């Protein structure tokens, strides 16, 4: 749990334990999805075609872009460019907001079509996987926002910026999970 600079993982070691635990939860969910899909191939293929792939693609783009801005923020703080770091985090948060808006519209569309957790197994997985990820986007944004405020208050510089790396690592995980979730649930036929 030390914060020396000679460590293999960026950011605080504690966040990596958290990331590992989170990936385990998502991993189990993905495996459960895959196994169930292999047992109900036709049902899954049929209902999958009603998912909103365009919004999904837009959201993928938004999250990857946000990760780019987060990387920019980390690089900036390593050169003591506090304002650039704050800007990067702000833009990443903006992308995150875009994701939440698009996803909310997608959810409301599904809900108004009468789709619920109990509709069928496919929609149960679709709703719970995407909603669980949705909550993680919110948590990731809370972490990024906390770092943004600390950065603006001058808490980080080229020597001490573990916090920025820590938040960035978590955000990349949120992004990575979506990059797996999107093809898995929306695209793979």
């Amino acid at each position, binding site marked *: 749990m030390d914060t020396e600079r000679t460590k293999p993982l960026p950011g605080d070691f*504690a966040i990596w334990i958290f990331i590992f635990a989170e990936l385990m939860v998502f991993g189990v969910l993905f495996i459960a999805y895959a196994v169930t899909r292999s047992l109900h191939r036709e049902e899954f293929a049929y209902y999958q075609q009603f998912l909103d792939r365009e919004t999904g693609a837009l959201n993928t783009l938004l999250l990857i872009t946000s990760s780019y801005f987060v990387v920019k923020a980390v690089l900036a703080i390593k050169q003591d460019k506090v304002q650039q770091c704050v800007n990067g985090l702000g833009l990443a948060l903006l992308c995150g907001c875009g994701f939440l808006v698009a996803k909310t519209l997608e959810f409301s569309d599904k809900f108004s079509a009468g789709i619920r957790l109990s509709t069928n197994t496919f929609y*149960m997985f679709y709703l719970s996987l995407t909603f669980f990820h949705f909550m993680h986007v919110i948590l990731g944004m809370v972490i990024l926002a906390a770092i943004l405020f600390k950065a603006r208050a001058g808490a980080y510089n080229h020597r001490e910026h573990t916090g920025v790396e820590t938040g960035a690592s978590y955000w990349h995980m949120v992004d990575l999970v979506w990059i797996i979730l999107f093809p898995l649930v929306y695209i793979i036929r």
Partner: protein
Amino acid sequence: MKYQSQLVAKNYFIAAILLFTGQILFGLIMGLQYVVGDFLFPEIPFNVARMVHTNLLIVWLLFAFMGAAYFLVPEESERELYAPWLATLMFWIFLIAGALTVIGYLLFTYSDLAALTRNELFPTMGREFLEQPTITKIGIVIVALAFIFNIGMTVLTGRKTVISLVLLTGLVGLAVFFLFSFYNPDNLVLDKYYWWWVVHLWVEGVWELILGSILAFVLIKVTGVDREVIEKWLYIIIAMTLITGIIGTGHHYFWIGTPDYWQWLGSVFSAMEPIPFFMMTLFAFNMVNKRRREHPNKAAVLWALGTAVMAFLGAGVWGFLHTLAPVNFYTHGTQITAAHGHMAFYGAYVMISLTIISYAMPIMRGRTANGEKAQVLEMWSFWLMTIAMVFITLFLTAAGILQVYLQRFTEDPVPFMVAQQKIEIFYWLREFTGLVFLIGLVLYIYSFFVKEENVAA
């Protein structure tokens, strides 16, 4: 002791230990009734012994949590308790109400107690763990509100630390979820559904926050590791607790008439509930290995490490054992559940209570730690109780596996009572181990009365 008002915790801890002793005695009575069915009948029938055993557990843990909060919050907040007199007043109200309730259980048949306390005006009785008469439940809410007000005002007007805020969140959650004990719909599915909001969201949700913050507090004190490091761990542990534990409630919704999707959500999320407990184990051992001082209270360190290990085994491993829906289909409500319940409650909540009592009691009695003789006795009690609990769990697990096989899995299943007869040997073994547990508890209590010279002040 840094603040005079921390002393209000002392009564709470003493009451907790006394009620704990009562709980164990009723556990032994009940354990014997498993094999000698009419033992103490009709004075104390099985259902009453069970009710007293479980209710005493909950009440004494609440006493211990309140004591812990009154002890650690002033120190964390760096100020005296907002209203020490209120804490003392609430102690007596809670103790008298609790005692009256238990006496009510023992003196009246349950239906008479319900009539006597006018349950028909606002029916909340008759549900497992929530058997208390409505008037007692209202009393619990009043005590909890006064307690949270007192703790909340101390936290909010003093230094705010992660530990005190996590503790406060846990305590508020405890109070809020208890309110669901007043919701008693006619629909049995809905009734059970919300019943778990008290039972599950307490022990697999907000109580874990209380556990985490008490453990973190004791570890800061006994290891001298930077607060920053300890708080970081606390953050990730509680985050993981909530991520897995809230939806994990679904593992109680498999067979009660709730929609099918709970079998998926409940299985997956509750299967992850061991993670925060595992983190707690890593956390405790890491901090103790990195200690910057040798705290003279070795017994408290032992309890803290024991909590981390036993909570993981009891709540984590034994919980996982029967949490997946296809497994639970067979094991639901068997002795497997009892095995898990015993080790989880002991490992997580009994042991954290004994940890803070072990740490705080010597301080409140004017010394950093007890003398060597008392500590050695306390460590003996630790091992006796813990090993006894491990064996109680193992015997119940064996009984449970056999029960599942005989009653539910084999080609020609036998009726419940026939299966019970065939697993009798394990109930006897459990009862003897229970006596060892009692010896451990007696030693524990005795360790408070050891007179010694040369004790560091």
